[in-house]
């Protein structure tokens, strides 16, 4: 029987960057996996959770838990941020010992961020992609410090033929997005973005690659307004685009 995984498409993939979801599916199918996508747009509940609105977050999570429980494949998340929420916080939204907490715990146990799954679980490195250009990798906060995924995306990027990885100053610092923080604290968020862009500009990459679309959306906005040619790419899309047709 074919190995089956469930892909958590995340709000941003679903609403703004479907190519990332398609890219993830393409990568996984090439490795012989059958990919299921839950039929409903699902949110991990993080926007309300981060705002301290736990009850609202619970309402969102309840729907998500119902939709995702009952599968037994790995739940693949193309986002460190949503992944961290599902892995570490979802189970604690519900009363200890409740059925919902148990279901959330089952889901949590299945969660893998995409690059983590490809590298740690499948033992992959070279996926067969080739892209020529310089790449600056942005290690997003919740991916690297929440999920502890630091080396896996770099391993995948290093294996891409034609890619030169660039390091830059304060590489692991926040881009300033922070979800709704970028709306409620726009000036501050923008100032942090400028700092990130200042450090990126010093190395002038062709691509900025990350595993979190929130950061990339924020950076993309900054690049566009400043007339930069640098492209932003989610790792899944970047790798998929580099695959032979």
């Amino acid at each position, binding site marked *: 029987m074919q190995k089956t995984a469930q892909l958590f498409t995340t709000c941003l993939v679903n609403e703004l960057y*479907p190519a990332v979801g398609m890219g993830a599916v393409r990568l996984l199918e090439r490795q012989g996996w059958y990919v299921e996508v839950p*039929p409903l747009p699902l949110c991990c509940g993080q926007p309300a959770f*981060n705002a301290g*609105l736990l009850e609202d977050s619970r309402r969102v999570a309840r729907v998500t838990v119902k939709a995702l429980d*009952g599968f037994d494949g790995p739940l693949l998340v193309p986002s460190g941020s949503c992944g961290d929420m599902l892995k*570490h916080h979802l189970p604690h939204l519900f009363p200890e010992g409740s059925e919902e907490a148990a279901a959330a715990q089952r889901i949590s146990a299945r969660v893998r961020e995409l690059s983590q799954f490809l590298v740690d679980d499948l033992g992959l490195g070279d996926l067969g992609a080739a892209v020529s250009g310089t790449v600056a990798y942005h290690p997003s906060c919740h991916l690297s410090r929440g999920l502890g995924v630091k080396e896996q995306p770099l391993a995948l990027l290093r294996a891409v033929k034609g890619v030169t990885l660039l390091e830059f100053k304060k590489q692991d610092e926040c881009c300033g997005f922070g979800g709704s923080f970028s709306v409620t604290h726009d000036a*501050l968020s923008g100032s942090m973005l400028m700092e990130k862009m200042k450090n990126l500009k010093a190395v002038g990459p062709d691509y900025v690659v990350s595993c979190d679309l929130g950061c990339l959306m924020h950076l993309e906005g900054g690049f566009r307004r400043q007339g930069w040619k640098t492209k932003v790419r989610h790792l899944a899309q970047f790798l998929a685009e580099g695959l032979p047709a």
Partner: protein
Amino acid sequence: VSPAPSPVFTDRAAQALADESLAATLRTATGLLEERRAAAAAALDDGAFEALRLRARAAKFSVLGDLAGHLERFEAAAKANGAQVHWAQDAEEARAIIRGILERAAVKKAVKSKSMVTEEIELNHGLEAAGITPIETDLGEYVAQLKGEKPSHIILPIIHLTRQAVAALFRKLGVGGQPLPTDDVSGLVEAARLELRKHFETAEAGITGANFAVADQGALCIVSNEGNARFCCSLPPLHVAVLGIEKLVPDLSSLSDFLRLLARSATGQRLTVYSNLLWPGRDAGDGSGPKESHVVLLDNGRTRLLASQAAEILACIRCGACLNACPVYKAVGGHSYGGTYPGPMGSILSPGLGEREGQDLAGRARRPGPRLRLHALRRLQGRLPGEDRYPAHAALAAQPAHGPARPPQAPGLQGLGDRRLAPAPAERAAQARPCRGQLARPGRLDRSRRPSALRLDPPPPTAPPR
């Protein structure tokens, strides 16, 4: 007279952002501290720094698990040493107690060492109102006092100022007399030293905080890099120490862990220059030391915080590492936060003490001394300004589908085809529920609900920060 600062974080942050040199100053200074902390951690054996953090966490949690018992042990030991122990429920009571102690001894001037808890209770204002002159003797605090500012960092009060700004202030006020100090740091230090020495010699009382209180000893530990704290609690005939009730550590052997952790986390030092361990009230037998010693134990919201979800913040040792790591702090500085305690730890502690609303934490801030879950705690602390946006989002996202007319996936994902659309085991029946028009408006939701209880000793985060 400067205008009262805006009560809104975003307004104060906007003002801070308008000061172009501020963020540069902060980034330089905090960057240096971060590098030093990383080097200090790396200088230990592999994993030893993390082990130290976990031991400190466990020791603090054991104290918080029986705070009342530890406090009583501390009180009994301190009294046996000869100190007078006072309990203050809130800031007002603490000010009144300290004022009473000083007035009974006819104190006109008191030298102070750096203490965030005296900032919290606004002790200086209270003393000045009673005709007692407090003199801050930590160099940074001294400058802050001269400027009439609150400290903007919990270990480096004037991290937001350049040495040029300090030199300008000293020249304006004539600190150190002639010749006027240049902006050479050692010249500035010397000027302050000359000024402060006079105060040390004439003050009738010394007021300090405490970094740690050793429960079974009735002892206090105060660390400083300038030696001023030791002066404050040894030279004047009267010593008053004021500390939050969370400052307890169980015993001397755990204190050694905390001293190593605090110095490395705060400044990257292996040990702070002066680690002053004192047993208030104990007679050294040689006529040295204060004749009268008082310890004021302050609650001011801490027992309430202990009973709350955010109890873990009481294990914070105030090293400031989370401020140094926080990109928000670096961009706007400590004065933007509006409470006594700025930055990530302050975003949990200050609202917990009833000082103000919480602010956002960025993920990078998870770097306090004992391994605390600041990021998670922050979310337990309640709502943010601008929160009205979220109920709408929650109402939308909590619906099984965003209204009947909407395709279940964005057009791009339609390319996946039905083949890949797995059935949702539990949710199929509810799929078509309409929700447009039923969207909860802000105000319709009950937002006073409290989150459910949290264990005091949850496992540390699975991904330890490096």
